[in-house]
């Protein structure tokens, strides 16, 4: 991993801080996410503090900071889903798999993120797992659903 990042960094001039975003993009492409270790290396290379890099990176929705799990859960917290109890589903989900949005389970089974509206508000509340929409979620349905993913 060290080498991958160094290879990416080498292509950019350290003085040009504008290269930060392209570097982050390449790292994410190669590694699937931005790890604390990569941020450290990038920080040393560009002499931008880790907090700033993290601040900049979290500003863009394209970057993720946890390794992708085998299955990706996206829970909708848009207005419609919110009104229909999306928060409640999220809490149940968190209790079930033991992680918060932006995290990956230790066994790498799931990663979890929240999104704002998946465009099917009529079916609220909505959860998306690996690009498949599951509509009108309830806590009971959710438990059954999760069992299908290994």
């Amino acid at each position, binding site marked *: 991993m060290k080498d991958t990042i160094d290879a990416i960094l080498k292509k950019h001039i350290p003085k040009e801080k504008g290269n930060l975003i392209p570097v982050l993009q390449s790292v994410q492409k190669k590694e699937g996410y931005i790890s*604390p270790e990569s941020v450290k290396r990038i920080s040393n290379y560009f002499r931008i*503090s*880790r*907090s*700033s890099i993290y*601040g900049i990176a*979290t500003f863009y929705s394209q970057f993720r*900071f946890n390794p992708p799990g085998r299955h990706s859960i996206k829970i909708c917290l848009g207005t419609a889903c919110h009104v229909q109890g999306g928060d409640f589903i999220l809490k149940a989900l968190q209790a079930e798999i033991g992680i918060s949005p932006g995290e990956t389970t230790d066994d790498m089974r799931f990663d979890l993120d929240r999104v704002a509206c998946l465009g099917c508000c009529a079916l609220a509340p909505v959860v998306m797992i690996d690009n498949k929409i599951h509509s009108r979620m309830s806590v009971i349905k959710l438990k059954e659903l999760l069992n299908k993913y290994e």
Partner: protein
Amino acid sequence: MNNYKLIKLGKFDESVMNNKTTQNISVKIDGKTVNAPVGTTVLQATQKAGIYIPTLCYLENIKPYGGCRLCIVEIKNMRGYPTACTTPIAQDMEISTKTPELQKLRRDILELVLSEHPYTCLVCRDKNNCNEFMTTTRKVSVTTGCNFCTNNGNCELQELVEYLELTEIKYPWAYKEIKPEKNNPFYDIDYNLCILCGRCVRVCNEVRYSEVLNFVQRGNLVIVGTAFGESQKDAGCEFCGACIDVCPTGSLSEKMGKWVGIPDKSTETTCVFCSVACKMNINTKDNRIVNVGPNPDNRTNPLQLCVRGKFVPGDIMHHPERITTPMLKKENKWIEVSWDEAINFTVNKLEQYRGNQFGIIGSAHESLENNYVLQKFSRKLMKSNNVDILSSFPDKNIIKKIHDYYTHHKPANIDDITNADTIFVIGSQTNLSHPIIENRIRKAAKNGKKVIVANTHDTRTSYFAEQNILYKQGEEHIFLLSLLSVLNNKISGKLSNDLKQEFKNFDIEKAFKRCGVSRQDIEKIAKSLLNSKKSVIIAGDGILINPDSIYNFNALVNIQTILKKPETCKIIFLLNEGNFYGSTIAGLHSDFLPGFDELANKKNIKKWSDNWKTKLNNTKGLSGNEMVNNITEDGITALFVVGDIPAHPNLAKLKFLVQQNMFLTELSEHAHVFFPITGFTETNGHIINLERKLKEITPVTASAKDIKTVWETISNLARVMQEKGFDYKKPEDIFSEINSFIDLSFATEEKAKKEILPIRADVSDKKKKLPVEIIAENNYFNYLGNDLLKLIPDMEDILGEGGSGSSSGSGSGSGSSSGII
């Protein structure tokens, strides 16, 4: 129509307001004509006119942010409502700051800000009663969770609500449900109270250059944070506390004094922990330190301190283990006694130990006045010249070298660092030893100045260096010689020719090898020094606390001397304790009477005998080290120690040991008398810092009634011993006595002396043993010799693990540089 030319505000220039050369323009503010220099912002102009504009994100001396929009104004012929903090004035501008329109908009803005902030405390109908009766929280009701909020009164929201007469908030309050962080050393964080003004982020990045805080996440999830939500410490926080000082809410708050209440007094004094001697402001209530923080009248431009100045005073002065009464050791137990009893007992004993068997070891954290009286007591009354301070310098004469240097070279100013174009930092862990110097180095680096850092290991300063040199430990001197030689070869002239002679047999290639720095690197440093218009060399412990310290010193001064324009190069010697120089000039040095008058010179003995109306003993004095090593039947038998000194088996052999300290320490096991001592916030006096400036210490709190200063203790002893010349009533009496004998105005002969100091250009030289045993392991985190890491658990938390605060022996140790690297 009048078209204002708006200058785009680039880099904010702090000097603008003070710049007298720029042209003044006049504007009208609320009908009042105000003159201010070009480049002034509307906000600065209004402040100058004494007109108040509410602000939330504004901070003096840093680039305006324009984030909160509370400072909006109306400007004639300008559309919309520009923000005063970002808009520069232009000729004949007509500005209104308080139209009903503006006040309404401001109220709306504040309401929006408060929709994400627990506001019950602000608009509750019972607010006034609450002020009176609910003293445990700042004002928010307990149910809303605001019992996290401190009650120290540092809330600008409350001030704004009052000013804008906001009585009701139409939005429901959205609680952010962020877990408050209470595991950090020294301060708590509750971002539920954060209004995202960005002051902490900007101060951490743009004033302190610690680069710990940033806005993270986006949209309504934005909060202030660190990378991956790691702890402040892991993110490289230096616990300078600057972010707390500027936070307008209770989001960031010191643990100490959190529930003490609103301070009733704010006092300015001087920090004595290191020789920068920062000005500090201490807020107190009922004679207790609430915090060291901004003066309530000047919240947007607080004084900058480091972790020691910010967090130690309160913790140490009100430490639960502090000793507050005199004690005598009876049957191996400490018994509390009255001052009279302790003094009488001590006098009886001291009478038996007059002469060369007696010695005093003081502290360089103590004032000029205290240390002057201390050495006078030893010399005049006890007839002993064995006086010293607990010092980390293996060569006790380095301070004299520095003193002599000052008589020919004006001591550098801290601001010289930012004004220089090359800054060469050598052998220093400035971020730990002198954090405010470090701050200036970083500032210079950020402003594009060339910073060269040389040390045995990477330090946090390396992160800011354009050139980072690592030399081998113990080879500091060879490194300096190599630099001197390379530099000298680029210069011609008499001095340089003399010096070339000295280097005749110097095998430079071997030298490069030995110090582990390549010729290219050294050439590069030499070039930078030669080509810079103004340079500053900063010499730290690695150079000064070193067996070769005197030669290192000489090499550095020679580097300065041979430069084409030595006047434009300055050397800063990083003395550790706040009053190192001052203590020596006060005479607390075995070789020097006050004013650096050599004891070995008979004339000086006569002079000071006359001054003090006595006959002084002319036996050579022993240094602290020598005293401790000489504790024998016919050597040293009695010691008076102010503060603490490191344990040594010899100490058990003392016949009589008096310790005056704040705490019982290992040394106390051997002591017979213990006097409690005031801390620097409890007394007045002076210290002399590394710029050789006289700085005043003012009392902030009164000490408990049975705690006395060194001079009071000594005066009492002298009175009972019926010795004249110690009847001081107040420190001012001592100061005027010192002033009548020594010139404290420190005139410098401006002309730099042009001579080459002796060097020892010998590469073959075997590694030398330390000439003397080091009495104090160099620990920056001590006060009066007491280990702050032991006394303050939070200090241990941030510096523990092998103690990056301490470095010992030759060169600086392997102190880890915690932080961003």
